[in-house]
């Protein structure tokens, strides 16, 4: 604490104060004041299906430039088929077997993946609380599957929050990442995105906008630097 | 010399009250000593447009070389000399963007500790214009009635382009010169590497930069390179000459004066 006080006093003096007493943040709410975002957030909840489809198109257009592969699924069944196809076509990278880590999320439970994948000789593990060896399994995994609850069309970015049953590493350690995104979770731009983040922003979280990439060797773009080498985003528009 | 007699230039200056204002020539020191013909060319252009001229005697240097090298006291003295010389002038017009930038933007900064001097500096700075800017923005001239039967590429000098925002005006003027073909070079706004004392202190870097500029000039296919600042042009000309290249280097005033070669 002594080092904190000395440090802050030095700054206080540098900014023209006498440095005798330190200013208390609680006395200066204006410095932290931000505009009320509730109205903007509410607006994003009132979008028509048509408007949401337009946002999905924008998301897909931007995604193309980021090498993020998009799909549309009109039902859980369709989404499940897309996932199976992706997993069948992807070779494992960190183990000889095909292992899939699945976030604990109702939409992912609804996909009924363990049963379907077992038939294809793909092992799926849930990351739900109480599951064992999540880290060790993730290290070997071919794919991590998540269900982001917010996405920004203008940047083709999804949010992953740090929640029980939804480890960070699911979108990081496996060879590829698959995200199941509900159509209604897409908002337009940075302003709407941050307005909707609201309380999330108090938690650890990450925005993800494509597969891991680098251009550090002669500015040649290469996907799959340290994170997943592919990101598949399935936009779920439940009409059936 | 076909210009000057037709009286049919596509200009509106004749209806512009500004046209009645007298222009005080502010001749950059380099032009004064090394390129006086550029000053003469300006006189020719203004005469043709019927603009009354004066040349306040006692001009030396605006102080920019000292200023850029950090010698602000010396720059301040030069600034004071300039302000006293031009304080009574109506419009001050200079054939160099960087000198105008010095007077307009840097003089007031030099006197930031003296509000009264700063006000005087601002007042002079406001009336100080670069040549092409003055013709186009103040007089409404786009056609000086000149002819120039050459392929010309234009170099955007740094302070002219970035500090004064002048890039359209010289092109408007060049595009209205009869028989002149304007060809844009790659990276026309990239620095030529002059930088005042920089070119003396770091000649190897300066040369590398001017070589880049020359590469782009040659690649453009133009046989003349033109600009609005003799210091950059001297640098380019000096290197072209050393390399034995035949591309000609001229100030825009020389083209606008219609001295057909």
């Amino acid at each position, binding site marked *: 604490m002594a080092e*904190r006080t*000395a440090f802050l006093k030095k*700054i206080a003096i540098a*900014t023209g104060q006498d440095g005798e007493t*330190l200013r*208390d943040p609680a006395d*200066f709410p204006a*410095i*932290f004041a931000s505009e009320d975002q509730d109205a903007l957030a509410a607006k994003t909840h009132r979008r028509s299906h048509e408007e949401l489809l337009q946002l999905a198109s924008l998301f897909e257009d931007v995604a193309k430039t980021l090498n993020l592969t998009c799909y549309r699924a009109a039902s859980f069944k369709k989404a499940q088929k897309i996932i199976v196809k992706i997993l069948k076509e992807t070779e494992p990278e960190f183990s000889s077997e095909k292992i899939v880590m699945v976030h604990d999320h109702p939409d992912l439970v609804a996909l009924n993946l363990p049963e379907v994948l077992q038939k294809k000789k793909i092992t799926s593990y849930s990351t739900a609380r109480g599951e064992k060896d999540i880290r060790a399994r993730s*290290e070997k995994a071919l794919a991590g599957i998540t269900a982001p609850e917010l996405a920004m069309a203008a*940047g083709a*970015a999804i949010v992953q929050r740090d929640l029980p049953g939804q*480890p*960070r590493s699911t979108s*990081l350690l496996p060879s590829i990442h698959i995200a199941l995104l509900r159509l209604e979770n897409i908002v337009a731009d940075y302003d709407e*995105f*941050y307005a909707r983040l609201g309380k999330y*922003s108090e*938690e*650890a979280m990450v925005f993800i*906008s494509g597969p891991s*990439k680098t*251009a550090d*060797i002669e*500015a040649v773009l*290469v996907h799959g*630097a*340290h*994170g997943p080498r592919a990101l598949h985003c399935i936009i779920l528009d439940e009409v059936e | 010399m076909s210009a000057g007699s037709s009286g049919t230039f*596509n200009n*509106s200056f004749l209806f512009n009250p500004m046209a009645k204002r007298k222009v005080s*020539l502010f001749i950059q020191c380099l032009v004064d*000593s*090394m*390129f*006086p013909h550029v000053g*003469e060319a300006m*006189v020719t252009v203004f*005469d043709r447009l019927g603009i009354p001229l004066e040349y306040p*005697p006692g001009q*030396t240097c605006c102080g920019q070389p000292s200023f850029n090298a*950090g*010698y602000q006291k*010396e720059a301040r003295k030069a600034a004071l000399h300039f302000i006293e010389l031009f304080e009574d002038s109506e419009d001050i017009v200079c054939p160099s963007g960087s000198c105008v930038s010095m007077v307009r933007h840097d003089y007031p900064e030099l006197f930031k500790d003296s509000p009264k001097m700063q006000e005087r500096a601002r007042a002079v700075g406001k009336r100080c214009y670069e040549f092409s800017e003055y013709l186009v923005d103040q007089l*409404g001239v*786009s056609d000086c009635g000149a002819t120039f039967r050459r392929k010309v590429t234009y170099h955007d000098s740094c302070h002219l382009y970035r500090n004064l925002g002048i890039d359209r005006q010289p092109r408007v003027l060049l595009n209205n010169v009869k028989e002149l073909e304007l060809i844009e070079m790659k990276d026309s706004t*990239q*620095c030529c*590497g*002059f*930088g005042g004392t*920089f070119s003396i202190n*770091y*000649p190897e*870097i300066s040369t590398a*930069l001017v070589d880049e500029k020359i590469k782009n000039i040659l690649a453009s296919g133009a046989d003349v390179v033109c600009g609005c600042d003799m210091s950059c042009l001297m*640098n380019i*000309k*000096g290197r072209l000459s*050393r390399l034995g290249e035949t591309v000609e280097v001229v100030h825009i005033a020389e083209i606008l004066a219609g001295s057909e070669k």
Partner: protein
Amino acid sequence: MSESFYRENAKKAIADDKLQAAINLIQDRFGTGLLNLWKEKPEMDELRNRVKAAKDKNLKNLDILLAKLADSVEARGGHVFFAETAEEARLYTIELAKRRHVKMVVKGKSMLSAEIKIDQALADAGIEHWETDLGEYLVQLDKDIPSHIIAPAVHMNREHIGDLLAKRIGTPLSYDPPALTLAARKALRRKFLKADMGITGCNIAVAETGQVSLVSNEGNIRMTGTMPPIHVALMGMERVVANMQEHKDMLQLLTLGAAMQKISTYVSFNGGPVAEGCPDGPQEFHLIIIDNGRSKILADETFSEILSCIRCGACLNVCPVYGKIGGHSYNRATYSGPIGAVIEPLFNGINAQADLCKGETLCGACLKVCPVKNNIPRMLLALREKLAYGDEKWDVEQQNPLEELAFRGVGEAMVSPRLWHTGEKVVRSIMKKKPHQNDMVTAMSGPGRAWTDDRDLPPIAEKSFARLWKEKLQNRPLPAEKKEDNSGKDEGEEK
């Protein structure tokens, strides 16, 4: 001595065709690209001004913001340490590492970690440490230093990298960027999974939420902050914003400035040990807030603006001088390019870094491209002024008294037209005696030699403009006053 070091390195870089091509590529793509973006989207100006204003406000209230940030992080169970010097930051890190028996550290790309020289401290403590950003990793393997804030290995070509990886980590020889990237992916993955501590920097800290926000495209920074049990984030004290709205604005400028991206691949927010019930993430989180010379800059209104820098590296991508001499020529300092030319002298001594202060043309491209419009040319001029006369506050010795004498002499002439024109005459007669070709002087002596080594010099004209005016121009016959027909045909487009 330092001057020759700068110039010698510059010469080497200029002669290195491959380096020139590599820098050209990123300057064309990112530098020219960003300048065009600012031009094509003038509405971005509002965003830029907003961020600058927020930065300005935050710098003036930095004590409050940092107190709030520290409180927020501590409330979440994170540790905050305030380090006035690089040494304090190093000591804290090393002691923590020793206490926790850390054997291996992975590092996410952080300029500040280089600034405080943490690598040497880790090595001295016998702790293995690995850079994980691909470019930084390659530079580390090559026992070199980065040459660009965003593209650390821009000076290395694929042949060099292929040989390096084959030699140092035993990968099959290849010059194919994807194959080389894959080799590094494999090698570094093992380290991420084994490391006991991750050290990252901090791009933007949010005071209100107590989060450190980091951007990356490779995912190495997420790995560094997620896999090891301890996460140490190094933060320059000026990196803080008040709230998420300011974060939103600054993030956009950062990713646009760095690589013309709307958003980087990953933007992570962390501010404490992993939350209850979450299966992965660090057990311990330490935020080290570092001054290391910044409060001195903050206290000087001439230079405090430089603390608004968001470290995007855009100024390197437009600087003609950087484009020629590359990052290593800046006396092998941590920060190169225009931003380095201002902060390195302020951090490490203006005399010692005099070449960085003086080695620019003042073309102003950095000011045009800077997302927060930092006036770097203005600050370079202020640094030069200190070198010109000496300066007590910054402990600057006058660099060259003879030079001052010369400028004083010229200064006298500038206010005395007679003296000025006498000088002109003297120079004219000197130049006349020098060798000529095509009406140009080809070889000067004295300071002029630096010019004529590579360029010819136009002579001083026989008659100056001042003399021509006096002798003929002021009495020239004016063209006869023309009576224009104002009936309308001459009305120009400007009307």
